């Protein structure tokens, strides 16, 4: 009798282990900075890209719901395109994290712009090396 239960338990645990493994490999999203992304972008792979929305890069076309901007970490700048209204916590000179994938045409296709609702959100980060580092650090931490 005991054998049956032990065997059943092993099967269940193995199935669960496999489901978790498969789930992680399929839905893992890597956090990258613009310079990390540009060194080796893998088209179609899911990324979270965090950086500063550079000044003058933001265009928003309400008719077509096309949003485009550029994210920078001070060393590299990546063009981003998104379909849909910019979220409330979004703007030039601010940090943002977008989720999506690299399009072979040479831009980052965002499916989601992650907004942080916390009241401790601090916008101003100087465009210095240290400022960018600090920004990326806080973006990494803030967004799961």
């Amino acid at each position, binding site marked *: *009798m*005991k054998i*049956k*239960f032990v065997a*059943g*338990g092993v099967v*269940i645990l193995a199935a*669960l282990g496999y*489901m*978790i493994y*498969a*789930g*992680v490999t*399929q*839905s*893992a*999203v*890597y*956090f990258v900075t613009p310079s990390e992304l540009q060194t080796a972008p893998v088209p179609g792979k899911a990324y*979270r890209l965090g950086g500063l929305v550079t000044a003058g890069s933001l265009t*928003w076309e*309400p*008719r077509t*719901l096309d949003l485009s901007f550029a994210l920078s970490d001070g060393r590299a700048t990546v063009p981003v395109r998104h379909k*849909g*209204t*910019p979220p*409330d*916590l979004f703007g030039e000179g601010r940090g943002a994290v977008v989720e999506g994938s690299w399009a072979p045409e040479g831009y980052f296709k965002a499916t989601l712009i992650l907004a*942080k*609702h*916390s*009241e*401790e*959100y601090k*916008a101003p980060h100087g465009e210095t090396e240290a400022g960018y580092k600090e920004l990326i650090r806080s973006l*990494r*931490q*803030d*967004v*799961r």
Partner: protein
Amino acid sequence: MTPELGYGVLIVAFALAVYGGVASAVGARTGRTRFVLSAQHAAVAVFALVTAAFGLLVYAFLTFDFSVRYVANNTNLGTPFYYRITAVWGALEGSIVLWAWMLALFTLIVIVKTRDQARDLYPWVLTAMLAVLAFFLLVMTVAAPPFQRLSPVPPNGRGLNPLLEDTGMITHPIALYLGFTGFTVPFAFALAALITGRVGDAWITLTRRWTIVAWYFLSLGLLIGGWWSYHVLGWGGYWAWDPVENAAFMPWLTGTAFLHSVMIQERRRMLKLWNLGLVILTFSLTLFGTFLTRSGVIASVHAFTQGAIGVFFLAFLALVVLTALGLLAWRWEALGAQGELDSVVSRESAFLLNNVFFCAAAFTVFFGTVFPLLSEAARGVKVSVGAPFFNQVNVPLFLGLVFLMGVGPLIAWRRASLDNLKRNFLWPVALGIAAAAIFFVLGVRSTLAVLALALTVFVTATIALDFFRATRARLRLGEPPLRAMGGLLLRHNRRYGGFVIHLGILVITLGVTGSQAWSVQTETTLKRGDAAELAGYRIRFDGLAAREESNHFKVVGTFTVSNGRIGPTAMRPAKKFYPQEQTPIAGVDYWMGLTEDLYLVLGDFARDGTEATIKVQVNRLVSWIWIGGFVLTLGALLAILPERKKAT
């Protein structure tokens, strides 16, 4: 003056809680009731003092005492009256006060109810309760002091986080904390059972109703949280697998497992170790959840401030886990099973499988929540797993649990014969298969949706069958129908309360399935007079207006909505601008219905009011999630009625 008084009250309360805990333990060791009595008095005094501290904090909020940092941070002169009260527990410090107050209240109730019942367990229960209470009082005096002064005193406060200005926020934290603190009671009894070596059923019988109450409030807290998320956050969903939701969901999963596994112990004298382990795990997870969400390790709406609090919770969690493990090891020999599993096809197996699934789900949620931390610590890369991961792993487990919900209550104990299986499951299985076929013919093509609906039908049929048979048996004895049914519910209230809760879960399953499978949405920019169309609705943009409220300014869009059945009606989604916030907050407008909700969120707009971007969602069957909550409530009420003696 108020802050100093409050601070003093908390310090005295802390000292008394420590004293009471020690005194009760000494009383238990030496057998001198005087010490236990003294501890009892200390516990009553702690309750009075925490109540006073709570009252003082409310007073500080009502009188806009901005010399208190916590008040200044979470309210301002424009905060409406009700929200000034709910703001008390709107952030970290106050939420700990509310928590401690409930814990003190529960300690009081334990004293009143079990003082004379379990003379050997009771003193240790008191010690455990007061120890946990002392921890929270320590947090309040050192790590997150609610009465800290602010100097210079600002003329106005910062104001409450506008997302919390909602009626859901009055009830959500209260329900959730009642659930969290409620599990402290069975936990304290489990510790007392281990310390005294009375690891039999006494502690389970005594805490049965506590467990149901705690479980119910935790469920309610989760549901209200979902409701708040749905109608305040403006993304159109009720559950996002956000770390904070997960933090409350994990103890719910293990607590639900516990609720079921105790039945095996009561009936078959098995799983003693498992049950103690589960309740300790559940309590530890409430602490872990608080650590996770309040320490800033993982950010979310609830991660109010970062500070020493994380270290406190982590240290206390370690203390709890180590103590519990030590006690379990100490009592290892007494924890062996007396019963044996007889057959794979039996009620024991079904319950065991139920526990395995619940724990697997809890582990999955845990794993997914801490995965980013793990991956960063181990490999230096930040990798996160989002909703797809949680859904992919948990949905099969949940469907399995729904299936077991139909099997468990009806299958025979020990060994189910083929006859027993046929008798109980032939019709329900046939109905479930028929339902699957019907839904398929009706055009439902999502495998998961078909499966979920078929299982729902199957489980409902098992419950109906059981109730029908039991009623028929009573009718044969000559009872009138209504009395037969009522008598059945009241006499076997625990069993039928459980069934009603199961029905509530089925109704929620229906809502979740519907909203996941059939909801549709669109986003578009409209010029004044233009209309958008979605799922038979026509939504015309009529213009924008600006309005000033007591503590914010809002832009309201007017949309005329009509469909085949409903004539033109105005809907007014808004965007709210709070001075203390950098960015606006959505003011959702929605229609709720039994089959679908229409949900409007105002996006971007042209300042002259000629144009607005609108997100339109038609969310299907979502209302059933809230209806399921009501059914759940009825079931929980029925289940906690005192069990009738089987007289006749």
